[in-house]
């Protein structure tokens, strides 16, 4: 029997009004397809913008094998290792905001690209800062030589991670960046913000167009597959809005464009590559079903309830983990929510290079 119309018989998730999240935001689940499962023994490598740190943190907690290739020397107290950003991601690369940054990191790791800039002088002029991870080392490096020695260990660790991982989870964060005109090197932060000297002759602002992001992302993922053909990918887009835009327009307008481009790039990559999924953390946090409850007091950072929702679905769909459902956020008393936010602040300090940007 033929259909009355083409929507007849389609799954309920394709229809807005059928979404249980309308009544109970906590039940909102936009994950409808996946190409693979993550086994508890699978080595999972994480990278990307600040939001990726939450993914890493939950993987660490939930019994999955979050593969930490770059470890602190065992003599250090965990509190010191954390302070120096060991274990935040699989290697100490800090936030990787743009697809170009990921691509160049891979090229640098395998000796195919050597940027002109080695180290920047810190803002207090007492130490050396790594231009490609400017806030990774509290107090900076004592010399360029020390930075290079650390970088050598860092690159060895990344190579280990790339070649031994089973799953790579990458969170796309930004399209805006600063490019060194001399060699095309991309910096996560403009020189002068957390170190270095801003020289407009050498460093120019660039806002990647969607074609550039797609190309960079595909180049990076294909590069990884060359080194590790069996690796599976999960791509996400950070729901955290831009902290600042260098475009002459409102920061939220820039945010919308940036996130749209990243979402298209993730879609394109997931369609072109096998075993490459898009995971909708962006949608979980920003959808109207969530009623804006997943943003912190600054309306930018994602709160613990939002991260928990994202990761509950991530573990449910990819880990096959049947977790206890969180209580409905709809019924959460406001006072309790505030207290929880305060606790969150203490519970985890995430490294967000972008937050260093201000107009001061």
């Amino acid at each position, binding site marked *: 029997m033929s259909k009355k119309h083409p929507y007849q018989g389609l799954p309920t998730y394709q229809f807005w009004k059928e979404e249980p999240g309308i009544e109970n935001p906590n039940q909102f689940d936009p994950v409808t397809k996946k190409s693979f499962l993550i086994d508890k023994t699978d080595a999972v490598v994480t990278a990307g913008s600040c939001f990726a740190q939450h993914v890493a943190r939950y993987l660490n907690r939930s019994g999955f094998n979050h593969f930490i290739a770059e470890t*602190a*020397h*065992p*003599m*250090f*107290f965990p*509190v*010191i290792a954390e*302070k*120096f950003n060991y274990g935040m991601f699989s290697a100490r690369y800090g936030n990787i905001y743009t697809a170009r940054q990921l691509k160049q990191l891979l090229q640098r790791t395998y000796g195919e690209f050597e940027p002109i800039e080695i180290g920047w002088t810190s803002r207090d002029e007492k*130490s050396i800062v790594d231009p490609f991870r400017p806030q990774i*080392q*509290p*107090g*900076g*490096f*004592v*010399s*360029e*030589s*020390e930075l290079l*020695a*650390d970088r*050598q*260990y860092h690159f060895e660790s990344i190579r280990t991670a790339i070649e031994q991982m089973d799953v790579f989870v990458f969170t796309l964060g930004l399209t805006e960046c600063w490019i060194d005109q001399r060699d095309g090197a991309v910096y996560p932060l403009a020189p002068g913000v957390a170190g270095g000297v801003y020289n407009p002759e050498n460093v120019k602002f660039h806002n990647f167009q969607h074609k550039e992001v797609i190309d960079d992302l595909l180049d990076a993922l294909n590069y990884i597959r060359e080194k590790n053909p069996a690796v599976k990918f999960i791509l996400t887009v950070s729901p955290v809005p831009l902290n600042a835009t260098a475009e002459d327009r409102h920061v939220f307008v820039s945010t919308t464009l940036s996130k749209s481009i990243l979402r298209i790039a993730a879609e394109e990559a997931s369609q072109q590559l096998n075993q490459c999924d898009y995971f909708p953390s962006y949608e979980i946090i920003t959808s109207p079903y969530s009623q804006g409850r997943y943003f912190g007091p600054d309306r930018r950072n994602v709160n613990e309830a939002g991260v928990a929702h994202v990761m509950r679905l991530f573990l449910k769909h990819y880990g096959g983990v049947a977790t206890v459902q969180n209580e409905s956020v709809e019924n959460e008393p406001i006072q309790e929510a505030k207290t929880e936010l305060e606790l969150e602040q203490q519970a985890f300090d995430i490294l967000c290079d972008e937050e260093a940007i201000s107009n001061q």
Partner: protein
Amino acid sequence: MNVSKIKNILIIGMSHSWSLINAATQNRNRFNGEHIQFKNEDFIEYDYEKYLDFQVDHKLAFTELDAALLSIFGNEHNSFGLFEKQVPFSLFNKTCDFNASDNPTRRHFVPREMLKQQMKLILEKRNTFLILNALKKQFLTKPCYFICTPPPIADENHILKFENYYPGRPTNQIAPRQLRLECYRLHCEILAEACDLIDMPFLQSPVEAADTDGFLKETYWQDDPIHANSKYGQLVLSQIERLL
């Protein structure tokens, strides 16, 4: 400068203070030395402020004080740098660009600032900075100097002679000399910064006690792997004499 008057000095310290105590004893014509000996455990077992109050008041009753010399918490660098760790590590020097280890490729690289923070945390856990503050309060009207711990001994053979000094440690695990020196410098840096914060003068190790590389000269070695002798103590007391 008055060098003829005998100086009343109170030496407050742990193991490294013996070089000063012995030097003062050998120079009674120049120094009237009293001392208070502490061990790390003293600050764990007691309410350290009350304990310090009691000890210092007790000693001050004997004499009119010219200077208090603090020689405390001087061994932390040895816990990092004297013996090789199970995973050997390498460290960079602050001023020169050399890798402070023999063979960096087989070593776990450790950022200098990170090791500094770790050492600082250990000193904090031992109440070092609170104790410094408490002692500073004790001597508000009297000169009070923090005496830098003596430099490390470079000669491995000397260290190896004292295999029973650290029971259970295989004696073939002495760390490379440059690593030992750099851990020492880091330790001194932390203590000097802490003293600076409370306006307590930090007296650097006498220049003449060190060889050109910065290690303790043989003539100042004590009969053990890490301490300096009374000749070294005399150098420090001469520094003090010049300051008073």
